[in-house]
């Protein structure tokens, strides 16, 4: 049970993030929900790399040579960068919508209808 704790945290954070996206009305809170979901996925990728007794794969002043593979860290880094680009684009959309519509409440941003 204890060793599954990262995965339980991943599931909890994903549910919190998805619940925020689905239920909240303010556009910025929806973006924060997306950010929480991305953080959960990054935590999932990192926790896949755990090997018992391994150290970080850095040769500079390393205490031993039992190293984990560097692949999950590269995947997580790429995912973080994509998350930054996504957040930047979403926030600039929010700025434009606030300037044109005067509100960022999703109940009023509904001009595209049937």
């Amino acid at each position, binding site marked *: 049970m204890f060793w599954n704790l990262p995965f339980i945290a991943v599931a909890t954070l994903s549910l919190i993030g998805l619940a925020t996206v689905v239920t909240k009305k303010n556009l910025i809170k929806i973006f924060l929900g997306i950010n929480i979901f991305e953080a959960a996925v990054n935590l999932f990728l990192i926790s896949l790399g755990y090997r018992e007794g391994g150290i970080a794969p850095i*040769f*500079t*002043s390393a205490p031993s040579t039992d190293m984990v593979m560097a692949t999950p860290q590269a995947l997580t880094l790429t995912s*973080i960068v994509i998350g930054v680009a996504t957040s930047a684009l979403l926030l600039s959309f929010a*700025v434009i919508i606030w300037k044109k519509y*005067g509100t960022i409440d999703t109940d009023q941003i509904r001009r595209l209808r049937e």
Partner: protein
Amino acid sequence: MRMSKLVRTGADLLYPFALIFGLYIILHGHLTPGGGFQGGAVVATGAAIVIVAWAYEDVAGMIRKVTMKAQESAGLLLFIGTAALALGLGYAFFTNVLANSGSLFGLSVPFGPNPGELNTAGVIPIMNIAVGIEVWGGLTVILLYLLSGLNKKEEGS
């Protein structure tokens, strides 16, 4: 809206330290944790401190959008040019042609745990520098555009 004199002075003093620390992270990416994106984000945070402390109109003359956009494109072109260099030399795309070769970053890596030698790893530090320049330019451009977009209020219809 300008912040108080305390904040402005603090930001002015902190900016060079953030710059040096970020450049250190970019340059030592192949030896210690860090690399292009992380170092570029730290340098952009330094620029963000200055932009937030001073009013946007004061900063817009010094940190210009055009310069930062050109810096971003230059970083990207350096990155893809370094990757295409291997194609021109006859190997596959993205091959590390400078590693263990004796030229620019080409010393051989000493085996086993060691204090780290900067002159190694070939093409990787060059790509780190390219990505660092690009991320610095890109994140600063995002900040400048978001701030300038908010400053001009418009009527919602």
